[in-house]
């Protein structure tokens, strides 16, 4: 789960990391009130889940009230890479001399957390990591102990951070690691960490992504989830508790298990079709979940045909068949042709109860996918 900048900054500030004075605003009047309070220059920043907000026109610096009004009017309500902007963060502009980077993430290859510091902040840190990896100092952390203060100091010295601010930066890195651990984050980053002309450091941006699997122990963070932040269908999938990704094609795909669903997508592509979505109903799905999955896929206007690919292990074929029947019997006419392939646990029982007047049945994965691709071609013509 990804927090908005204003939410992440709240968490960072609570932990003791210095952030600029700011207000959240959702109307032009609120922005004007905020800048009058904070002073100039003031940054007006769209609060949406997309990278590169600045380049896309989602961040502007106002130097007087007129500009603030104008920028607020531009940004509020704009469509930023497919996301509607309904809130902005109004923040005191920082007069800075340097921009640094600090971050904590899980190094999955090592199976350990890693803390990172660079004096090349303020830019695309992924490009820095790729082109000049030596510009980022890295310190792996033993998760049993957490980050020792000496490790934070070492990373800061290795990154060549100026001596006069080394202490402040290492203290922020230690705090950032602790909050990364406390919140079960996958990533916690400050980019840029600005150094002012008074040689104070301030977090000018804040990224905090929390492990979805750990949200059960962070009800306060789970409440911050912005369900309206994504695609409408993705929000619906979220409500149903599906792993769902909307894609650009017209063949709707439902299956069990991420690997098998991805393989089904790949085969749709291989046989000349285009996947409309990735939808994993997960393990052990009961009939209702299957019904919801069909509802999801049918509510995507781009879908011209559907393929259901189930290989039961923990999931039972008879439950799946029951769900398909229930979902389809509710229609006077099936919205789009559905191909079903059932294998594995209780597949034989499933095939016996499946209402084959409503669906097409194929024995193998390859045949099912080819038929669905053909159906989509016919429907779209």
């Amino acid at each position, binding site marked *: 789960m990804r927090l908005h900048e204003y939410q992440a900054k709240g968490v960072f500030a609570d932990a003791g990391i210095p952030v600029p004075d700011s207000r959240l605003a959702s109307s032009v009047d609120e922005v004007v009130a905020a800048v009058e309070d904070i002073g100039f220059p003031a940054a007006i920043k769209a609060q949406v889940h997309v990278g590169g907000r600045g380049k896309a026109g989602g961040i502007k610096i106002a130097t007087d009230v007129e500009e603030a009004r104008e920028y607020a009017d531009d940004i509020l309500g704009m469509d930023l890479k497919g996301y509607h902007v309904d809130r902005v963060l109004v923040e005191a502009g920082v007069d800075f001399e340097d921009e640094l980077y600090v971050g904590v993430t*899980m190094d*999955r*290859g090592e*199976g*350990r*957390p890693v803390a990172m510091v660079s004096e090349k902040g303020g830019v695309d840190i*992924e490009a820095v*990591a*790729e082109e000049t990896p030596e510009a980022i100092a890295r310190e792996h952390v*033993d*998760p*049993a102990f957490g980050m020792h203060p000496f490790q934070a100091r070492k990373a800061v010295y290795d990154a060549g951070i100026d001596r006069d601010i080394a202490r402040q930066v290492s203290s922020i890195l230690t705090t950032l690691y602790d909050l990364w*651990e406390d919140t*079960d984050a*996958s990533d916690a980053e400050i980019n840029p960490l600005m150094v002012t002309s008074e040689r104070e450091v301030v977090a000018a941006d804040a990224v905090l992504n929390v*492990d*979805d*699997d*750990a949200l*059960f*122990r962070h009800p306060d963070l789970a409440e911050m989830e912005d369900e309206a932040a994504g695609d409408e269908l993705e929000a619906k999938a979220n409500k149903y508790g599906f*792993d769902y*990704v909307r*894609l650009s094609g017209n063949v709707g795909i439902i*299956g*069990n*298990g*991420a*690997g*098998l*669903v*991805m*393989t089904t*997508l*790949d*085969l*749709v*592509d*291989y046989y000349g079709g285009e*996947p409309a979505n*990735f939808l*994993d109903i*997960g*393990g*052990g799905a009961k009939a209702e979940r299957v019904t919801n999955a069909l509802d999801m896929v049918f509510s995507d206007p781009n879908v011209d045909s559907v393929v259901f690919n189930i*290989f*039961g*292990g*923990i999931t039972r074929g008879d439950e799946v068949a029951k769900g398909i029947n229930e979902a389809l019997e509710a229609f006077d006419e099936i919205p789009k042709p559905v191909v079903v392939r059932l*294998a*594995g*646990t209780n597949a034989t029982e499933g095939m016996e109860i499946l209402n084959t007047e409503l669906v097409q049945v194929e024995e193998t*994965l*390859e045949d099912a996918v080819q038929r669905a691709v053909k159906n989509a071609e016919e429907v779209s013509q």
Partner: protein
Amino acid sequence: MSILVDDDTRVVVQGITGGEGSFHTEQMMEYGTNVVAGAVPGKGGQEVKGVPVYDTVHDAVAEEDADASVVFVPPAFAADAMFEALDTDLDLVVAITEGVPTQDMAKVYRRLGETDTHLIGPNCPGIITPGEAKLGILPGNIFSDGNVGLVSRSGTLTYQVVDNLTQRGIGQTTAIGIGGDPIIGTSFVDALELFEADTETEAVVMCGEIGGEDEEQAAKFISEHMDTPVAGFIAGRTAPPGKRMGHAGAIVSGSGTGTAESKIDALNDAGAPVGDTPEEVADHIERFLS
């Protein structure tokens, strides 16, 4: 022959009194697995499907001489269950639980390094030596005894590929689902090393997917250390960058590594042909064996 499990393996089921735990204990026993005990705090003294339940894994090991465990414990308590299993020096721990927080797994993985235990999973279907034993949730009926090893990050994809093999009369030595999470106990390299040392495994199927760099590391291992031929499959060729495709692990970073293309290239370069479809993987294996 087999790796890690056979009909001598003595299994304790952690979480045996839960819905999944009891259902799959029955399934495992029907398959022939030697389930000797269950371990559930506070439920010591009960019986599930005729299997005695103990309060601790320590008691189960002491009383029933268990040497492997299968974990069917909910995600919030799964890491603790794995720590408990590791504390008893079992040879093998198989963690089925899906949704274990990544930071919990980092701690378990760190502890694992201090032991001689093999941990498989979490978020995996388990391990099966056809005709002898299965530890986990794999549907036993699709497997058959033979000479092909299989290692996969995805459960249902394992079933699909095994089905393609079995339909052609190609049996398996052992099949392992290692799980799709970012931090797992047994990696591709660990499993490949075991298959390479197994005299009966004549060919290996490796099913990978987008995300991480485990497949790239496996390719390096194959080219440097393996005589046994390997055929690969990589799921997620059509996945868009930056989107999480089900598994926590299955996300393409967008920076070139972790993509299906980089994994397929690495395996092909290592002499391990990658099939475009599961059928093509079976074609490669058939060719290796002839």
